């Protein structure tokens, strides 16, 4: 391994840590969460994840057919999807702000974002 090799690996490591830290710091301390479902680049729906008893299924239409997302308090997952590889379903439940479930074949992104003007955060 030559010197430029080590430099390159160091740079990649630094970039990986930096990009992780940016996500981590950006969303630190947000306890009030919203799941944003994006299809074909535009917002399909937004779901308040803090709402008690929010367990329900959401049908999301895509080019391949309907994908189904399941919501429970504080988390969301892709329950079923007509895509061939099911990476989106394997991602499992996501519950952290910034986390995403991506289904490239069915053009769906589920993203957890901090709620904008939530009563909870103001009251606290």
């Amino acid at each position, binding site marked *: 391994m030559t010197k430029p090799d080590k430099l390159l690996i160091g740079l*990649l490591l630094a970039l990986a840590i930096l990009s992780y830290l940016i996500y981590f710091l950006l969303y630190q301390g947000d306890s009030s969460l919203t799941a944003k479902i994006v299809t074909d680049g535009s917002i399909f729906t937004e779901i308040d994840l803090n709402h008690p008893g929010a367990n329900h299924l959401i049908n999301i239409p895509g080019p391949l057919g309907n994908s189904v997302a399941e919501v429970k308090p504080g988390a969301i997952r892709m329950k079923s999807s007509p895509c061939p590889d099911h990476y989106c379903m394997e991602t499992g439940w996501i519950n952290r702000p910034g986390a*995403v479930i*991506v289904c490239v074949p069915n*053009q769906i992104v589920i993203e957890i974002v901090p709620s904008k003007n939530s009563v909870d955060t103001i009251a606290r």
Partner: protein
Amino acid sequence: MVSTRKLTTIAVLVALAIVLHLFEALIPIPFPIPGVKLGLANIVTLLALVLFDFKTALTIAFMRTVLGSLLSGTLFNIAFFLSFSGAITATCVMAILLYLGKSLNFHFRFSLLGLSVAGAAAHNLGQLAMAALLIKHSGIFYYLPVMLLSSIPTGILTGLLLRELLKHLKASGQLDEISF
């Protein structure tokens, strides 16, 4: 005019790359992240860059993704576009670094390991960018840290494999016939 020997070698390399491309799809990956894989086919791209030139390597990468997708039944669907953009980006980045190492002579020379790691990282970046374009959303860059991190061990592994391969090719005297 391309010599028959070169043409034959390119054909063998394309065949080899396709087999590796298809073989890789059979290896289960413990991450639910699209695109994290060993990148075995990148060995052939880098081999072509070392033995021949950028144009030849690009041709092989192009043929590999098109024919590999055709054989696995994914031609022109999402998986094809992802591996296509990844393979082309990787080839370009490795070619640039190889060229830099040859033209700048002040100890700025990457070894096969470094080139391979750079190729793996470039492959992942190209793939992420293509995925972001396809879904029209940049949220997929959430996977950037994992993708960058995974390119280090996978790049080193494929680099080591290529180093062994070249060692054996040299020992067997095959390279004397290929290099012109």
